[in-house]
């Protein structure tokens, strides 16, 4: 399992990267492995409000659907439309395949650094 040292992680297994004023969000390698082969991603629309701890979309495998829980509160500034046609990117390159970028962030969940996240995953 890969954990990128430069990223922060939520306990719901999303990663977060700050790019200027934007928060870039994706799912961790641990998450994609647990979810199995992903076949579709439901994304929010640009301009939608997201709330920390609440679903902003979901990912489908063949037999399951799992909510994507936002680690931050704010407004969706960009969505990764490539994922709509190629959801396998989340499996193949979880840290390259960002899902949404959030602006005007007003709150964040408790975020872990790489070491703390690794320990958290080991417990799970």
């Amino acid at each position, binding site marked *: 399992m890969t954990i990128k040292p430069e990223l922060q992680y939520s306990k719901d297994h999303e990663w977060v990267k700050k790019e200027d004023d934007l928060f870039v969000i994706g799912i961790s390698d641990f998450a994609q492995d647990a979810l199995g082969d992903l*076949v*579709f991603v439901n994304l929010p629309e640009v301009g939608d409000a997201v709330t920390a701890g609440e679903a902003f979309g*979901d990912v*489908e*495998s*063949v*037999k*399951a*659907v799992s909510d994507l829980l936002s680690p931050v509160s704010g407004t969706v500034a960009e969505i990764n439309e490539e994922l709509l046609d190629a959801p396998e990117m989340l499996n193949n390159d979880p840290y390259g395949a960002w899902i949404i970028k959030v602006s005007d962030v007003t709150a964040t969940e408790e975020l872990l650094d790489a070491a703390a996240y690794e320990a958290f995953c080991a417990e799970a």
Partner: protein
Amino acid sequence: MGSYVPSTEEERREMLAGVGLSDYRELYRDVPESMILNRPLDLPEGKSEMEVRNAMAELAAKNTVYKTVLRGAGAYDHYIPSIVKYIPAKEEFLTAYTPYQAEISQGVLQSIFEYQTMIAELTGMDASNASVYDGATAAAEAAAMCRDRKRRVTLISATTHPDVINTVRTYCYGTNDELLVVPAKDGKTDTEALKSMLNDGVASFYVQQPNFYGVFEDADELGKLVHEAGAMFVMGCNPIALAIMKTPKDCGADVAVGEGQPLGMPIGFGGPYLGFMATTQKNIRRLPGRIVGETTDHDGNRAYVLSLQAREQHIRREKASSNICSNEALCALTAGLYMATMGPDGMAEVANQSMAKAHYLEKALTAIPGVKLRYDAPFFHEFLLDMPKCKEIEQALMEKGILSGLPYEDGMLWCVTEKVSKETLDTVVSVVKEVLA
């Protein structure tokens, strides 16, 4: 008493002992004693197969089977080829469950894949689902699939079959969404009214083609208006008419649905029928119900599976857009079989003959003084006549073994299919003449 339990009393005793019980009552020991029905059911005694056959035949004999049916209004009496009656009765097709186990269900899955392709061809759309319950629920499901967070209102034309309007209204009542009926003008959707009702809260507009009065709507124009307002355009089509009529795709429809009963299903006092649903590539994942997809097995053989299941209730639970699961698979098989048997030319022939015969009857009846076509517009195989003495006409034709048009709003809604001969139509005309003389 009839029974389908194979075990003999002796075997049952053995099995009971095998479970470690001595009395059948002990099987129900979790059921509180006070609740157990302490009397026999108030039902007749069970019957032998022969007695059941006779009793059912007696019930069937209490109905009147008309030699000729000139009534449509949502249930169309087309000729059903013999092979279309026999094949769906094969026991494997008949008794299998939903094809979740693909390895032993390729027959059902492939038949649905073929049906999906035929519906896509017929409607011109990109993709079809495996069916829904009937045309009315297809309309309701279409309305649901077109709604999003911002656009919630559904519009439906007043020229739609009353059962369809009522069903869509009921589904909207379920989700607390609004349904507005766009008024009719001269037997067609009132385009001016539609324009005034469209706004950025409207999710979709539904029109029936040909509509409840048999009249062709100006579908292209309606579609254009709907799209200009950013809403989705849903067309409910007669599948026989589709063999010759401009496709929903060419009319700009985002979703095409309809009642599939004319595709080889008997009128059967209202069911089972078949709802078909097709849409554009963009909206495939919004389709409710089952969808069969093509894939391969580990040896690279072509294989079919129930696909895109994560849309459905057994996975998505309360977030599913519909709760639909089992619906009308055998009717879909029947429809596919019917279309394969008729072929493209046969389907067009059914449509053309129905339309020609309907026009023949319309012309002959409107030549009778006092009889008038209510809506003077191109129609398919149904037409609404203003005529007096509808009840008397119904009665007089009944005596000849003919089910007349449907008495409706002080007139009569007639339907003619390819089954009716010119000779019979001439008889109808003379009977009507007599009654009105």
